[in-house]
C-alpha cells in the first residue's frame, strides 16, 4: 500500500512537494502561535505559579494576580489563627520606575516579600541568591529586561523611584505579564513604592501538614469579609482567564490557528485533488482490473499520510529551532508533550481532511472511463 502510494508521490514530485509545504507551513504556524501563547499565559500567571504559597489571600474584588488591589495588614495576624495555617506572610506589589546609570529608564513592578519566609522568591536565578536581597537597597533584576546591558553584574547600581539601589540577584527569564519584575524585601518595596505599613497586596499562606488547602480556603472564605482566599492553582487559573478574556490574546491565537488549519487544509486538499485528477485514468484502470473503492481510498490516504509525516517532521524541526532562537530573546517556553500530540493530531486532521476531496472524486470514477 505504502509502496504504491510512494510510487504515485514519486511520479508527481512537484505536487507532493506542494502538499508537504502546505503541512509544513500550517503546522509551523500553529506551533509558533501555540508557543507564543504558552509563553504569554505563563507570564500572566508567573507570580502565582512561582510562589511557594499554598493559598493566596487577596482583596475580595481581585481577580488577577497582576492587579491585586490592597488589603489590611491586620488580616495577617487573624489568618495565623485559622486552624491549618502555617505561615502567613504579606506581599506588596508596587509600580516604580528604574533608571540605569547610562540613563536607560524603564517601568518596573516591585515585589516586596517577607524574609526569611520568601514565599515568593526570585526564580531562575543565575547570579547571586535570594539572600542578597537582605542587604541594603538590594533588588533582583532579569537579564532580558535591560537592552543596554550585555551582562548584568551583581552590584550593578541603579535608581528605583530616585532611590539608589543595587542588583543583588540576577535572574534569566523571570518575567511578568505587565513588564519588568524586581523582587526586594517588603520594607524596601514599601519605602520605594510608598505603600503604607498597614496595607499589603496579598497575604500568602502555607498549610500545616495534615490539613488540606481547600478546607483552609473554605474556612477563611466563610469567616472573613473583604478578602478572598484562593488555592494557588485556582488563582492561577482565574488570573489566566481574566487576562485572556480582557486581552484578546486567546481569541487572536485561536483565530490564527483556525486560519492556519483552514489554509493548510485547502492547500493540501487542492494539491491532492489535482494530483488525483491528473491520475484519474490510472485509478480507473486499477478499478477496472479489480481494485475496490476501499483499495483506491487507501492508496490516497497512504499518500496523505506519507506527506503528513514528512511535513510534520520538518515542522517539528523548525519549531524546535524557533523555540531555541526565541529563547535567546527571553521568550522562554516549553512545548509540552500534550502540544506535540496536539500538533500531530492537527497534522493528521489536515492531511486526511485534505485527502477527502480527492477520495470522493476517485471513488466516483467509473472503471469504464479507461476507454476515454
Amino acid at each position, binding site marked *: 500500500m505504502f509502496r*504504491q502510494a510512494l*510510487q*504515485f508521490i*514519486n*511520479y*508527481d514530485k512537484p505536487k507532493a512537494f506542494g502538499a508537504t509545504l502546505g503541512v509544513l507551513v500550517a503546522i509551523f504556524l500553529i506551533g509558533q502561535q501555540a508557543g507564543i501563547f504558552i509563553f504569554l499565559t505563563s507570564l500572566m500567571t508567573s507570580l502565582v505559579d512561582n510562589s511557594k504559597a499554598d493559598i493566596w489571600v487577596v482583596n475580595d474584588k481581585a481577580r488577577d494576580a497582576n492587579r491585586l488591589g490592597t488589603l489590611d495588614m491586620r488580616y495577617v495576624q487573624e489568618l495565623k489563627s485559622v486552624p491549618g495555617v502555617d505561615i502567613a506572610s504579606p506581599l506588596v506589589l508596587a509600580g516604580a520606575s528604574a533608571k540605569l546609570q547610562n540613563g536607560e529608564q524603564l517601568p518596573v513592578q516591585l515585589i516586596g516579600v517577607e524574609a526569611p519566609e520568601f514565599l515568593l522568591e526570585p526564580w531562575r536565578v543565575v547570579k547571586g541568591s535570594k539572600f542578597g536581597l537582605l542587604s541594603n537597597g538590594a533588588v533582583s533584576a532579569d537579564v532580558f529586561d535591560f537592552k543596554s546591558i550585555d551582562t548584568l553584574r551583581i552590584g550593578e547600581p541603579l535608581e528605583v523611584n530616585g532611590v539608589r539601589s543595587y542588583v543583588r540577584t540576577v535572574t534569566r527569564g523571570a518575567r511578568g505579564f505587565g513588564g519588568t519584575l524586581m523582587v526586594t524585601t517588603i520594607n524596601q518595596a514599601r519605602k520605594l513604592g510608598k505603600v503604607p505599613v498597614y496595607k499589603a497586596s496579598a497575604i500568602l499562606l502555607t498549610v500545616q501538614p495534615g490539613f488540606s488547602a481547600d478546607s483552609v480556603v473554605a474556612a477563611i472564605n466563610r469567616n472573613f469579609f473583604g478578602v478572598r482566599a484562593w488555592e494557588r492553582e485556582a488563582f492561577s487559573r482565574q488570573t489566566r482567564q481574566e487576562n485572556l478574556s480582557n486581552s484578546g490574546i486567546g481569541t487572536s491565537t485561536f483565530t490564527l490557528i483556525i486560519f492556519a488549519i483552514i489554509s493548510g487544509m485547502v492547500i493540501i486538499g487542492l494539491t491532492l485533488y489535482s494530483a488525483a485528477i491528473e*491520475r484519474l*485514468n*490510472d485509478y*480507473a*484502470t*486499477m*478499478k*477496472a*482490473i*479489480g*481494485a*475496490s*473503492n*476501499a*483499495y483506491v481510498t487507501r492508496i490516497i490516504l497512504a499518500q496523505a499520510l506519507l506527506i503528513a509525516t514528512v511535513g510534520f517532521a520538518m515542522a517539528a524541526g523548525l519549531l524546535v529551532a524557533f523555540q531555541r532562537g526565541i529563547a535567546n530573546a527571553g521568550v522562554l517556553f516549553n512545548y509540552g508533550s500534550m502540544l506535540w500530540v496536539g500538533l500531530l493530531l492537527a497534522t493528521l486532521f489536515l492531511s486526511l481532511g485534505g485527502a477527502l476531496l480527492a477520495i470522493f472524486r476517485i471513488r466516483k470514477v*467509473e*472503471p*469504464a472511463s*479507461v*476507454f476515454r
Partner: protein
Amino acid sequence: MPEVLARLEQAKKVYRTGDTTIVALDSTTLDIRSQELVLVEGPSGSGKTTLISLIGCVIYPTEGKVFVRNIHTSGLNDRQLSKLRLKNIGFVFQNFNLIAPFSALDNVAFPLRLMGKSGREAYKEARQQLEKLGLADRGKNLPRELSGGQKQRVAIARALVANPRILLCDEPTASLDHDSLKKIMTELRNLSQEGKAVVVVTHDPRLEEYADRIIRVEDGRIVDEVTG
C-alpha cells in the same frame, strides 16, 4: 466440454449526453464459452469496445442482464464486482492503460497483489510472465519509457498473469510487428484450448485464421456470426 463463462441476455447500452442518445449496443444476446477464441470485428464506433466492456463488467447494461460464471452481475455491490473482475477477467485495454507511476513489473504484479499474494510471490510470477512476452529486461521501466509494442505486451502480460478464465482483448495487436503478432496469437489460441474463453476485438483480417468464431458488429448490432 466447453462451458458458458459469460453471457449477455438482451443486454443494451445507451449513452445520453445532453439531449442526444447513442445506442452503443442494441439488445444483444451472446454466450462466451471456454475453449473458444472469438474475434469481434466491425467498423469504428460500431460498439465492439462496448460489447466486451459489458462482458468484462466495467460498464453496466442500460437494459438486460450480464452473467459471469453464472452470476447475475447487476445484483453485486462495488466490492463483489471488483472481486469478480479480479478473479475471472483479464482485460487488455485498447489504449493499454498501464498505470503510469508503476514500472512494467509493478503493473504486471498489480493484479496478483490485489489478490493478496505476497510481494515475493507476485513479483516472481510477474517476472516470469514478462519473460514469456520477451520483456525480461524492461521490468524496471515506467510505461512512458516503453515503445507502443512494448506497452502492449506489458498490458497483455498483466491481463494474463492472474490466470483468469475470461480474457478480453481490445485491439491487442495494433502496435505489434508480424512476429510478435504471430507469437501472441498462438499463445492466446493455446490458452483458449486449455480452457479459457478469449475474446479479441480487431480490425486486422490476419487474425481470422486463429479464430473459432467471428462476430461482426455494425451500428451496435451483431450482424453476422461465423463459426469456423
